[in-house]
């Protein structure tokens, strides 16, 4: 047997880190979507868990969903007759974000896992043009925060505009399974569904070509957690004395972040690929008082 060298050690660390992360992602996906039998009849889970939000994106109209989607719930409450702001959901998202930042995206978001699996399918891989990462902030401000409050009907109720006009997660997880099992819904399919189906198709092709295309370009929840990455308890630290500027971390990053230059980048999903590949152990992801390196 040949002796292990540094590169074997590096590969082993990377695999260990990725296996641990995948186990957490699959467990979170399973917990969020545990009512798989509902797909057969096309009904929704109606129990008490739906009073609580999922920290990641998971449509509450998905038959298997146990929890509520925070982006859908935020718009539903702020667009309702009685309320114009959702303190409960906004508070939940801020609390989760200030503790974990975008580690939620890297570890527990169900749609994050779906995108990572899609990216494994053989397809010409591309890099995203950097300017597109700002689209998600426009979607958050305009479709999630503004439109449900200002675009109301005569009863004072606003539509959940992001869900209605954009969200490919809802079309994939809720729309397609429900249309497949409900002939009466198929009869009312119109132009709006065609638009949303096109957005879904573009998103899926984007995810085949670009790692986490939806997270990078479109996700309003990722935009909120990304802003909170700057102050979150779980964060990245860089030992500049150890770093030899080899650039391996930047090359390895699925979100195109250079963690040495911008350890608090709003794009970093705290996946740990950079910390595992660094030959000098110059990067660490940790809570403020606890070292999880």
């Amino acid at each position, binding site marked *: 047997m040949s002796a292990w060298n540094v590169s074997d050690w590096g590969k082993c660390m990377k695999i260990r880190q990725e296996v641990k992360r995948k186990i957490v992602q699959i467990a979170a996906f399973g917990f969020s979507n545990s009512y798989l039998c509902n797909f057969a009849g096309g009904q929704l889970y109606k129990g008490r868990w739906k009073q609580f939000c999922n920290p990641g994106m998971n449509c509450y109209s998905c038959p298997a969903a146990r929890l509520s989607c925070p982006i859908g*719930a935020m718009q539903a409450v702020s667009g309702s007759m009685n309320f114009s702001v959702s303190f409960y959901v906004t508070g939940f998202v801020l609390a989760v974000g200030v503790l974990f930042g975008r580690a939620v995206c890297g570890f527990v978001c169900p749609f994050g896992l779906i995108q990572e699996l899609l990216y494994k399918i053989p397809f010409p891989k591309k890099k995203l043009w950097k300017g597109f990462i700002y689209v998600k902030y426009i979607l958050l401000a305009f479709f999630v925060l503004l439109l449900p409050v200002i675009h109301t009907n005569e009863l004072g109720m606003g539509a959940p505009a992001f869900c209605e006009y954009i969200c490919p997660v809802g079309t994939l997880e809720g729309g397609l399974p429900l249309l497949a099992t409900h002939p009466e819904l198929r009869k009312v399919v119109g132009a709006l569904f065609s638009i949303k189906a096109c957005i879904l198709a573009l998103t899926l092709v984007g995810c085949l070509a670009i790692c986490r295309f939806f997270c990078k370009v479109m996700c309003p929840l990722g935009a909120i957690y990304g802003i909170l990455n700057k102050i979150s308890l779980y964060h990245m630290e860089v*030992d500049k004395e150890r770093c030899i500027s080899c650039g391996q971390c930047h090359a390895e990053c699925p979100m195109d972040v250079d963690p040495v230059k911008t350890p608090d980048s709003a794009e970093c999903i705290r996946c740990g690929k950079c910390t595992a590949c660094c030959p000098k152990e110059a990067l660490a992801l940790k809570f403020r008082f606890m070292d999880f390196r």
Partner: protein
Amino acid sequence: MDWNKGSGWKRQAARGLVFLAAAGMMAWGVYRGEMTVMLGKAVNVCLECIGLG
């Protein structure tokens, strides 16, 4: 060991303030009954979510 200081006092203060505000918002939202509105929406098929809205 020269880990860069990720947490200056301003960052810590911001973190504490946001967390307290978030906890207060959640409590206020629960108190005024937002969970019921959310549950009502989440247990029925959301026509907007599925693209029929």
